[in-house]
């Protein structure tokens, strides 16, 4: 896992709960925590931190991960505005993940293994997004999608009919975007 994810996690937790909480999570997870965005770190370090946060904040791990994604997205938009500023809504932005954003990630962070997505863009109402990653961090993907929708002033409804965590071969996320003010509901967290 790339160091930038750990840096984002640190920033999100510190913003929401203060530096002390981050310190205590590192202590609880027994991780030194000297993360640099250029480095590569074991995937289980992230899982340990998520478990520690789950205990400390009394939330299930998937909720922690998803929350992290929602809060990390605006930080990414601040750091890498170039990927965002061309778009006015979430759907076209998300469609650039495979073709533009992740190739750029691989250039700047050699050895990065971002997830693969496939898209069914045929329906105007629902964007179907397949998620493949050995890390099974579909909750993070959901969080990022939700965060992106908020960034573009939209609300997203996410349906997650098949999921690797539930034993399916891949995750399928059905996304419908609505302007803010519509009632939206997230299912299958």
């Amino acid at each position, binding site marked *: 896992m790339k160091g930038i994810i750990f840096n984002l996690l640190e920033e999100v937790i510190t913003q929401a709960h203060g530096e*002390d909480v981050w*310190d205590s999570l590192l202590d609880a997870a027994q991780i*030194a925590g*000297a993360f*640099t*965005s*250029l480095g590569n770190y074991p995937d289980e370090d992230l899982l340990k931190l998520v478990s520690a946060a789950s205990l400390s904040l009394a939330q299930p791990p998937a909720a922690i991960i998803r929350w992290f994604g929602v809060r990390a997205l605006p930080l990414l938009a601040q750091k890498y505005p170039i990927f965002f500023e061309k778009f006015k809504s979430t759907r076209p932005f998300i469609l650039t993940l495979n073709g533009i954003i992740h190739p750029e990630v691989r250039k700047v962070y050699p050895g990065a293994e971002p997830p693969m997505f496939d898209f069914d863009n045929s329906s105007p109402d629902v964007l179907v997004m397949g998620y493949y990653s050995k890390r099974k961090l579909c909750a993070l993907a959901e969080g990022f999608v939700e965060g992106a929708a908020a960034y573009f002033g939209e609300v997203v409804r996410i349906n997650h009919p098949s999921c690797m965590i539930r034993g399916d071969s891949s995750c399928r996320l059905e996304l419908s975007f609505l302007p803010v003010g519509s009632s939206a509901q997230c299912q299958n967290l």
Partner: protein
Amino acid sequence: MSESLGQEIERLRKRLERERRARQEAEAIAERGTRLLYERAQGMQLLYTIADASSRATSVEAAIQVALDALCAYTGWPVGHAFTVTKNAPYPLVSMKLWHLDNAELFAVFREASDNISFQPGEGLPGRVLASGESVWVRDVTEESNFPRGQVAREAGLRGAFAIPVLVGNNVVAVLEFFAREFAQPDQNWLDVAAQVGTQVGRTFEREARHEADRANRAKSEFLSRMSHELRTPLNAILGFGQLLELEDISPEQRDSVRHILKGGRHLLDLVNEVLNISRIESGHMHFSPEAVHLGDVIRETVDLIRPLAAQRNIPVIGPSTNVDDRHVLADRQRLKQLLLNLLSNAVKYNREGGSVNVECTETGGLIRLNVHDTGTGIPAHKLQRLFRPFERLGAEQGTVEGTGLGLALSKRLAELMGARIGVETALGKGSTFWVEFEVTANPLEVADAAEAPVETTQPPVQPERTVLYIEDNFSNLQLIERLFARRPNLKLLAAMQAGLGLDLAVQHLPDMLLLDLNLPDMSGLEVLARLRTNPHTCEIPVVVISADATTGQISRLLAAGAAAYLTKPLEVPKFLATIDEVLARRNA
């Protein structure tokens, strides 16, 4: 309070420590990345140098030397050396005696040992590369069991080594080996770069092999050209004297024998000409004079030529239809006839007894296609692609059909040189259709077909006595001309078998005409002509060149140098007589 302050300081200290470590780690990563980029850039520079040098190198050796020097500069290693892969069994790896040495004196003994050793596949460092086709890395050659030069390497202070294959395709054609003074840990980046160097240098080998093949091909063409040229000279005598005999008053049996001699001779001449044509085309010496050719005429003329052969086998030749009567194509008339004759004679030769040949033309969108249908056995699909290659005689296994196996190859090349396409459609058991496709061209307003004057061979015009000097070193040619001159009693023939003598005779006798061979022992015919032209006594004498060299370039060169006419051997008797009559008549006028 103090405790919580102490805890606070401790937390800040830990955070600071974390930040410091993260920064150090980031710097280390950045340094590694920068070094990697630097090495990649060096590798690229090296590859560029070698690719550039390889493409300029005039020899494989020069390219290898550049590769040795450049790789030593890249690695900082002091010794580089090349082995080539020879056909020597069982030790094919032999030193090319090409080296990069930082210190010639220090490595002299190692060099000598390496220059005089050869390896079999699998043996020693180069042998392992040859056997595997891959780079080999040795941490310490003095500790390596499979390194016969271990002792001399130790004395030279050499330790680490790696060797790379120079590849042409999957074949190892050479091995480059490099030595260091230190133990060497394998460096994947070096090996990657070195592997690409091997491929680059391999291209030089490839290019040299290609040049070698081109040279061999040119040599073959030249040999064929010279050979067929040599063959035409004795044929000249056979056909010439045969034609003479035909004009004599001889018995019917003798006439029949002469006919056979002439037929065999002409067939042999055809074969020789085909070989000559193919080699001319291949060596790029075939000259074409394209003109608007009346297709109907050409087809009818060639069909008429083939009819006797077809009649022997009871094969009617049908066509051509009249739809081509006003059609012209841009082609060389002679070559086009030759091409059609090839197709037609194949259609007859490979036909079944009592079959038929049908010639017809179809026209679509400015393209006219001439089809020659036969009713032969057809051609199996797997043989089609060999059909137009030289020396492939697909029907030859039956052993009944005469030919050189050059006809279709020649036809294809002729067609291509005239900007036409040639092809075949075939149905097994039913027959084949060979076609040539030309662009239709405009009908020229004037047909520049100068009708050939009917040739008079038996009734020479009565003329005053004339002297003709013939400079020719071939005795049978001389005899032939002498015999021909018997038919012109008013002509007195002088002969010289050397150019020098010929020039003297020309000045002494001031002949009315001079016949000149080009291939003389002491001087070229061109030079003889030039000397005649520059001498005020002889400059007016008309010179008729008689040569076996039928190349257009040569003909126009001699005509430009002032020759009155150019006749090619084997001589066509009527044409020869007509030419000398005409030249002498002009001289009279």
